[in-house]
């Protein structure tokens, strides 16, 4: 795959509030359609996954990063370059597991959740789990299988939103059946 030269930042910027409102409308509509919190969470992850597998191309083209040598580099690239590029925030990378295969991303001001209050009776709704799906999808496209979960959520009363990323395995490129 050839890499494009970095093009200037997209001049057709969208207002951050419009983005927040759009995502909010999406989640509230999903809630009306599915009613069950777990179903909505699953749908949001699927949506995130579909975004992730496409966003990774855009990301690699615009950021010109090289292949990461280990998982720690991956974590840094995700937090300092990827999140910065797409959401304008830089979450902190902390809580490394002793084996070095799990880390946490701490997000303090999540643009997705501006002005949002979870409605009554929907305490299990993971409002930001589209981010989990997106990370999973994007990393899968670069041959890393990971599991991403929300362990702390500002909408549920915690101080920060914490995403726990766990490395599962490296994916080998599978040769399509029928070829050599």
């Amino acid at each position, binding site marked *: 795959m050839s890499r494009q030269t970095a093009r200037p930042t997209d001049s057709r910027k969208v207002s951050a509030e419009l983005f927040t*409102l759009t995502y*909010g*409308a999406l*989640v509230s509509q999903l*809630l009306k359609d599915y009613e069950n919190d777990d179903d909505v969470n699953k749908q949001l992850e699927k949506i995130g996954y579909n975004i992730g597998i496409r966003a990774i191309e855009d990301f690699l083209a615009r950021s010109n990063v090289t292949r990461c040598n280990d998982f720690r580099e991956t974590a840094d690239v995700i937090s300092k370059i990827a999140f910065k590029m797409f959401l304008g925030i830089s979450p902190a990378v902390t809580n490394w597991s002793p084996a070095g295969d799990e880390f946490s991303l701490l997000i303090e001001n999540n643009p997705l959740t*501006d*002005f*949002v*209050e*979870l409605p009554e009776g929907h305490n299990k709704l993971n409002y930001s789990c589209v981010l989990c799906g997106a990370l999973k999808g994007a990393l899968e496209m670069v041959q890393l299988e990971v599991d991403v979960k929300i362990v702390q959520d500002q909408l549920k009363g915690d101080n920060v939103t914490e995403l726990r990323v766990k490395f599962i395995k490296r994916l080998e490129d599978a040769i399509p059946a029928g070829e050599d």
Partner: protein
Amino acid sequence: MTAVHILYKTFYSLYRLICSMSGGSYYFVIVGHHDNPVFEMDFMPSAKANDPKREDHRHLNQFIAHASLDLVDEQMWTTNNMYLKMVDKFNEWFVSAFVTASRMRFVMLHDEKNEDGIKNFFQEIYETYVKHSMNPFYEINTPIKSANFERKVQFYGRKYLTT
């Protein structure tokens, strides 16, 4: 004056024979597009806070606020401001109003003149209301149940109304 308005007045003057009110009480209601109350709160001086007749007063306050909506709707077209000052008077109750850009009507019943306090209160509640309505889970015109919103209204009420 409509017939309904007159009816309210006679009902009220009968009621007034039975009890009397002291200064400093406020009743605030946000009225939706279908004349439905979206949020209500009253602010009483501490002397009156445990008045057993408070429930009756609430029904009465709702009557008075409802009766003044016609006048609010008339007056909102006569000015560019959102704050309409005093739109109605009902025996010793004054009615002030504030109409937002989306035609949500903030109505305040009060028995003492406090134009500045009420104006500031309305402004702050307007900002709070706008922030609340940005919540994707809140449907406009439905009752506001957020504890956060209630706390803010109480705070501003204490700050601007009952000091």
